[in-house]
C-alpha cells in the first residue's frame, strides 16, 4: 500500500494535512495544546481579531440546540496589538501553521488589519471574516452583498502585499452564495472559507424571552452540516479551481470526507472541539484512514469527487 499524500494547498501555501481548527473555536491555540500537539493538524485558524480590544456581548452567550448550539460572543478579543505581541509569537514558536482571521467594523479597518499582518513572519494565510452574524447591524455583515464583499477584499489585497493567501469567509445566510463567491474571487481571493454560522434564535419558554442576551446568535454544530455540504458543492461546481476551506458541523473523519467530496481542499473543526478538545486531532487520523480505505492515495483526488460523472 502506498503512503497517503495528505498535503493540501491554498494559494501559494502548502499544509501538511487538510484538518484545521475553525476560527473562534480554538481561542488562540494554547488552550488546546494541553490535549494534543498542535503541529499534528494542518493549521490553527485564530479567533477573528479586530483593530481594538473588544469586550463582546453580555451573557448568556450560549444556547445548546439539537445537535448544535447558538453562540453570541460578539468578537471578544484583545485587539491586534496584544494579539501580535502575545498570541502569535507563541504559535510561531511552537512551529504551528497559523491562519490569522481578521474582522473589521468598516472597510478601512480591514485595510488597517491587513497592513499590520504584512510584516508578521510565520503566518501562512489570512482569513477575512466578512460574515460574523453577531454584530449589531445586519448591514455590517459584509458577505451579504457582493459590493461590500468586494470592497473589503480589495482593501485587504491593497494592504497585505506579498504572497500571503487571502481566504474570504462567507455566510450561508444569503440567497445565492455562488454570486458572493464570484464577487470575492474576482476581487482576488486565493480561497474561500465556507460556511460561517447561520443566524438563529432560541426563546426560553419558562422566561418567555430570548435565551441569549444578544437575542440572536450563530448556529453551529452537526445540525448545519448539510447546509455546509450544499454551499461547498455549489461553489466548487461554479469555481472548481478555487480552494475551499470547508466547515460546518464536522465531528468525525467521515464528516470531513463528506465536505472534501463536495469540494473542500481543507476542513476546519469548530464546535466539535467544545465537546472533545482532541476532536481535530482525532478527525485528522480518522480521515487519513478513511481515504486509504476508499482507495485514495492522494487527498487531491478526493476533492470534489462527488461532482464527477458516474
Amino acid at each position, binding site marked *: 500500500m502506498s503512503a497517503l499524500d495528505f498535503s493540501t494547498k491554498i494559494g501559494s501555501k502548502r499544509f501538511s494535512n487538510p484538518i484545521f481548527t475553525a476560527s473562534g473555536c480554538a*481561542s488562540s491555540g494554547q488552550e488546546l495544546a494541553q490535549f494534543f500537539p498542535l503541529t499534528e493538524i494542518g493549521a490553527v485558524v485564530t479567533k477573528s481579531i479586530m483593530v481594538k480590544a473588544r*469586550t463582546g456581548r*453580555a451573557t448568556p452567550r450560549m444556547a*445548546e440546540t439539537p445537535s448544535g*448550539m447558538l453562540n453570541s460572543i460578539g468578537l471578544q478579543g484583545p485587539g491586534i496589538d496584544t494579539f501580535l505581541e502575545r498570541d502569535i509569537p507563541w504559535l510561531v514558536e511552537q512551529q504551528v501553521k497559523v491562519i490569522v482571521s481578521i474582522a473589521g467594523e468598516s472597510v478601512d479597518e480591514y485595510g488597517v488589519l491587513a497592513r499590520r499582518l504584512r510584516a508578521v513572519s510565520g503566518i501562512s494565510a489570512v482569513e477575512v471574516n466578512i460574515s460574523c452574524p453577531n454584530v449589531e447591524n445586519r448591514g455590517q455583515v459584509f458577505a451579504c452583498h457582493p459590493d461590500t464583499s468586494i470592497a473589503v477584499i480589495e482593501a485587504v489585497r491593497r494592504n497585505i502585499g506579498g504572497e500571503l493567501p487571502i481566504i474570504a469567509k462567507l455566510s450561508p445566510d444569503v440567497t445565492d452564495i455562488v454570486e458572493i463567491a464570484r464577487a470575492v474571487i474576482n476581487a482576488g481571493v486565493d480561497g474561500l472559507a465556507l460556511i460561517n454560522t447561520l443566524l438563529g434564535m432560541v426563546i426560553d419558554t419558562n422566561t418567555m424571552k430570548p435565551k441569549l442576551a444578544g437575542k440572536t446568535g450563530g448556529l453551529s454544530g452537526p445540525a448545519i452540516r448539510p447546509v455546509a455540504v450544499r454551499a461547498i458543492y455549489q461553489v466548487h461546481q461554479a469555481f472548481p479551481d478555487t480552494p475551499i476551506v470547508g466547515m460546518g458541523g464536522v465531528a468525525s473523519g467521515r464528516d470531513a470526507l463528506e465536505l472534501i467530496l463536495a469540494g473542500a481542499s481543507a476542513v476546519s473543526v469548530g464546535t466539535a472541539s467544545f465537546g*472533545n478538545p482532541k476532536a481535530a486531532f482525532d478527525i485528522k487520523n480518522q480521515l487519513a484512514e478513511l481515504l486509504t480505505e476508499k482507495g485514495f492515495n492522494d487527498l487531491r483526488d478526493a476533492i470534489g469527487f462527488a461532482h464527477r460523472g458516474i
Partner: protein
Amino acid sequence: MSAKINQFATQMLAEVISNKKVGPYHHMVFAVGEMASHVKPGNFVAISVGGEQSSLVLRRAFAIYRALDKGPMGGSIELVVAPHGQGSRWLCQRAVGDLVDFIGPLGTAFGIPTVNANAMLIGGGYGSAPLFALAELLKNKGCRVDMVLGASTATKIYAPLEGKRSVSSLTLTTDDGSTGIHGQISEAIPRLIREFGTEVIYSCGPMGMLAAVAKIAEEFNLVHQCAVEESMACGIGVCMTCVIPVKNEDGIKMIRSCIDGPVMDGSQVIWDRKTVMDAL
C-alpha cells in the same frame, strides 16, 4: 495569567464506581487514577454527556465535591449532581461500571490564607459540595471554619455527615423555614460574621446568592472568594461563552469562568447587570 493554560487537565474515560441518590441529588464516585492527585478544592471537571449518538454536543461542567488520591479503587473523584437538565439527568442515570468521558481538573482553586484566619464557608443548594473539601483543608491548616448552608427547603441542603466533621459550626437556613433559620441565607450572614469574628469568606452557589454575599463582604471589608456559575460550552477556555464581567482600568473586562475561574475575587466581579449593560 497562569504560565500554561489547563496544565493539570487530562482527558480520560472514568468508570462509575458508585451512584447513590441523596435527597434530590446524586452522589457519584468515579475512578480517575492519577487525575485525583491534581485536584484542589474549587476545581471542576467537564463531562461529555448523552453517549455517542447524542444530539447533546457540549460538555457539562461539574464542581468536584471531593477527590481521593489513594482510595480503595485508586484515585477517585466525587460529584454531587442535581438532575436538572438533559445532560445531568443522563449522568445521574449511569450505572456502576459505566464509562464517562472526563476532562479535569479544570479551573482555579480556592486560595488558602497563609496565616490562621476565621473562615466562613457559605453554600447555596448543592453549591455546598466543593466547600467540604475546602473546610477540611482549612481545618488542617488550623483555621476556624464556620459553615453556613442555605436552600429553598430542607431537602435541598446538601450536608453529608462526613462533611460536618471538619467544621467548627454549621448553620442552616431555608427560605421556607423547614429547617434552621427561616429566610434567605444572606439575611443570616451579617449576624454570624459578628458572632464568629469572620475574617475571610468563601462562597459557592447561585449567582444571586454570591452577589448578596459579595455586598456583605464589602460592607465588612472581608476578603471574599466565590466560585461562580455561568453556562459553559467547553470548560477548557476555547468557546468564550462562560465569561464573567470584572472591573478593570477601562471599566469592564469579560474573563472566562473556566480558566480565570470558577474561583474569583468577589470584590472584582461586577454583579449588577445594569452596570454591565451600560458599559457594553
